[in-house]
């Protein structure tokens, strides 16, 4: 295996560890009341974040959900800005107005955590429309969960994007539960790719626990989308190891099911493959984890030291403020 490919796989692993360790730290910070509000973790779903978001170009747009810490971090939103947002600080990536569910970053075309299930899809279609009308060779990746497939907006948007042949990559992060409702308890047809295919677009399912498979599928889909023939749909079959949100008793699934899926832990899986292929040794692994932990410590210190937004600014940003620039 060539050195570049080996480095690449190591980057995938590093990206996943970064998201995993970050969210584990968030749990502790939440437990000690330094993070408040609703917080949804993607632990178990890291392969989607690194494989999909990591495969996008800087000019592409991302529309995400309220379970978006991993998407934001992989997209390049600084970890300190994400943490500062969750601490409600002025240096947060949404200046303390959004919190965990609403991370935004204009510079990285990260159009946010949308906390209305399905609500991000129309926005993604519009971004695609703008790109199509101005002939920009970019794509919009729209992430949503299996729950959104039951929403009317899903069907309206897939129809519209296919009808107008818009460069939108619909990415269904199917973790098998819409909050506490299992896939088979809310969908008459649980093959979600089949449902999307009904709108006349290429659609297929991918092992969402394998970052390399996710990345390969994303690259293939992006090539279809960018060319101009229209949107594409990926169903990323994955699983969240933790509850829907903090304070979720997780009564709707049994521990054995979680344990079964944990055998496919994307981090452990790639870690083991790299060890087996000789691309990583125990020392390298320890160094990788130590580096990630150092970054988290540093980000936490920076976020903690940041000022809070002054209360006098409460009413700011309800409307646009004159900046002299137009999007």
């Amino acid at each position, binding site marked *: 295996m060539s050195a570049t490919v080996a480095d690449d796989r190591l980057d995938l692993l590093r990206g996943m560890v970064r998201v995993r360790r970050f969210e584990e730290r968030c749990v502790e910070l939440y437990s000690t009341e330094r993070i408040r509000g609703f917080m949804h973790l993607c632990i178990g779903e890291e392969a989607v974040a690194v494989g999909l978001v990591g495969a996008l170009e800087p000019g592409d*747009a991302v529309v995400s959900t309220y379970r978006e810490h991993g998407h934001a971090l992989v997209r390049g939103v600084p970890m300190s800005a994400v943490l500062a947002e969750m601490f409600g600080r002025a240096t947060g990536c949404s200046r303390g*107005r*959004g919190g965990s569910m609403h991370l935004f970053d204009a510079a990285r075309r990260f*159009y946010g955590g949308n906390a209305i299930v399905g*609500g991000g899809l129309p926005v993604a279609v519009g971004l695609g429309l703008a790109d199509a009308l101005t002939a920009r060779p970019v794509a919009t990746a729209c992430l949503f969960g299996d729950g959104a497939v039951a929403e009317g907006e899903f069907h309206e948007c897939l129809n519209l994007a296919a009808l107008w042949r818009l460069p939108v990559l619909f990415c269904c992060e199917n973790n098998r539960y819409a909050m506490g409702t299992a896939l088979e308890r809310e969908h008459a047809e649980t093959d979600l790719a089949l449902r999307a295919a009904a709108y006349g677009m290429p659609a297929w399912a991918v092992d969402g626990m394998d970052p390399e498979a996710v990345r390969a599928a994303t690259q293939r889909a992006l090539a279809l989308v960018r060319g101009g023939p229209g949107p594409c749909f990926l169903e990323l079959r994955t699983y969240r190891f933790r509850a829907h949100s903090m304070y979720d008793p997780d009564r709707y699934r049994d521990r054995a099911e979680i344990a079964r899926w944990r055998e496919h832990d994307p981090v452990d899986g790639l870690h083991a493959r790299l060890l087996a292929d000789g691309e990583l040794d125990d020392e390298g692994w320890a160094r990788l984890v130590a580096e990630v932990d150092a970054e988290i410590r540093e980000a936490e210190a920076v976020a903690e030291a940041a000022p809070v937004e002054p209360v006098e600014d409460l009413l700011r940003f309800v409307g*646009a403020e004159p900046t002299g620039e137009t999007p």
Partner: protein
Amino acid sequence: MSTGTAAAATTSGTDRGPTYREALREALREALHADERVFLMGEDVGRYGGCFAVSLGLLEEFGPDRVRDTPLSESAFVGAGIGAALGGLRPIVEIMTVNFSLLALDQILNNAATLSHMSGGQFSVPLVVRMTTGAGRQLAAQHSHSLEGWYAHIPGLRIVAPATVADARGVLAPALACPDPVLLFEHAGLYGTTDDAPDGPGADDPAGVALDGAAVRRPGTDVSLVTYGGMLPTTLAAAERLAEDGTSAEVVDLRSLRPLDEETVLASVRRTHRLVVVDEGWRSGSLAAEVAARVAEHAFYDLDAPPERVCSAEVPVPYAAHLERAALPSVDGVVAAARRTVG
């Protein structure tokens, strides 16, 4: 027939000026010419020419990319307007009637109105949404409501209700120039009207119509009749009737429902000491309630009578003509309310 359209009928002579509908169309044409980022989309805006014929002929002139028919997917195409605005375009989205806009309420409220704030000011949504509002055409309870007062409740939106041909002609350009989402409410009863009677500032200068700022449509000294949109003809007719028996009514057209031009309303009430609000919306929790409350808060010691409200009856708008007429504010109702305030 509503009094609005009745008033319109009396003003359309042989040598009439442009209608409200023609003014809207001319404004759209001008905007599409002026800025290539501007496009129009909505249900049947293209081949059909618009449900109310506002966009008739624009498809032929500008092509299907810029005059874009959409499927019946209010949430998707209003949200697509938001996304396109974020992506650098200047979309104008037409929703057939305000009742249908409820299918897109998620996008209007949860996205258009909140994205700027929720992103800490990183994004703005320069989107214009046009929709028809109001009753008077026997279209019953799912095509006739006046819900603009609901939308005026929402921070992050700008709500405008052009009531005159001049405003219809002039309001689109500033709405497109505004970096925030603007909802334009066009009362169905106004489409055929001309501007012979009501003539506001900006009649000669379309560029001069501001997004905010109420207009005094008729000066008076005894009572302030505050209204907007489709109720302006009714209110002006009431003022005319009041003048016949010596009561001088001032008619204030709010034009912008959010933000409210409180100063113009308060200044008028401070002159007349009496207030009647005429609003086609339902009375409870209405825009009329907001206007009356602000006057009570800021001009209490100027009031020489309790504020009056003339609103629609609290019932879904019925079909039968006599029932519909009874449900809506009437010239008689406005005159009676004004007389009560004068005492």
